[in-house]
């Protein structure tokens, strides 16, 4: 016989779920569906989008126009999620995403944010000293490349579409997706081929 340890937050969660279903706001199935979608959301989803954008110019255009629609094309559930904006890196300009107010993050395609994304230090420095911040991530941005910092303050969630790294010519989408990491889609690092 083992006793299940129940915390106050467990009881609160159970009560809220019960109320939501009793009042017909959402069904148990919808709650389970959302839990599954949340658990399935990892940076691998965003990486699949980036890899496809690198090999398919039409998909790239659709992704830049409407990130959420492009995600749905790849079977990533976006229902009820905030709009997804995609920031295109070019040879001249690099994007970096921060949420100075809280921790807005494109969870549908990147999963839970890394711990540092929510830290006061990251949020303060990303807007004021972004080049110094990038150096701490081991990212040396050439002076000629402009740095565009996007502070995610409202209804959109933002991900970076990084440049395809050299040395990946002829690679499959799966191979390409494997080199795209979480930080590459936040903009603190670049995809690297080892």
């Amino acid at each position, binding site marked *: 016989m083992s006793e299940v340890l129940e915390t106050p937050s467990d009881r609160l969660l159970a009560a809220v779920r019960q109320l939501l279903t009793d009042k017909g706001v959402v069904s148990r199935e919808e709650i389970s569906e959302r839990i599954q979608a949340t658990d399935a959301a990892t940076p691998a989803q965003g990486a699949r989008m980036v890899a496809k954008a690198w090999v398919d110019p039409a998909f790239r255009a659709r992704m830049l126009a409407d990130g959420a629609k492009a995600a749905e094309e790849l079977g990533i559930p976006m229902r009820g999620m905030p709009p997804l904006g995609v920031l295109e890196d070019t040879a001249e300009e690099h994007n970096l995403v921060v949420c100075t*107010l809280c921790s807005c993050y494109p969870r549908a395609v990147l999963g839970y944010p890394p711990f540092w994304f929510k830290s006061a230090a990251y949020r303060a420095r990303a807007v004021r000293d972004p080049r110094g911040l990038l150096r701490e991530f081991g990212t040396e941005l050439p002076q000629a490349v402009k*740095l565009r*910092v996007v*502070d995610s303050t*409202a209804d959109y969630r933002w991900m970076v579409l990084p440049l395809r790294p050299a040395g990946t010519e002829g690679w499959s989408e799966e191979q390409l997706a494997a080199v795209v990491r979480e930080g590459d889609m936040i903009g603190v690092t670049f995809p690297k081929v080892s």
Partner: protein
Amino acid sequence: MSGLLSPGTKVRVRDDWPETRGPCHIRTPHYLRGAEGVVEKHLGAFPNPEDLAFARPASRLNLYHVRFVPQAIWPDAGGEALVVELYETWLEAA
């Protein structure tokens, strides 16, 4: 500012501090109050979060990506552009 703003329009963020007047929920960062920027893109219209947060009826507001020069906000800032989502009610003509 009401009416649809086109890209390139110069705007100023209202130098207003509702947090000094009582409970509120604001999506406009402190560091931008009073700052001048340029509209980059219209992002759509969304219910006003300042009302949503208090379960009040919320009207839909135009939301813009507005670009700022970081050095105009902090003289020692790095980076070439700072782009922030702002609602039309926080923007005035510059």
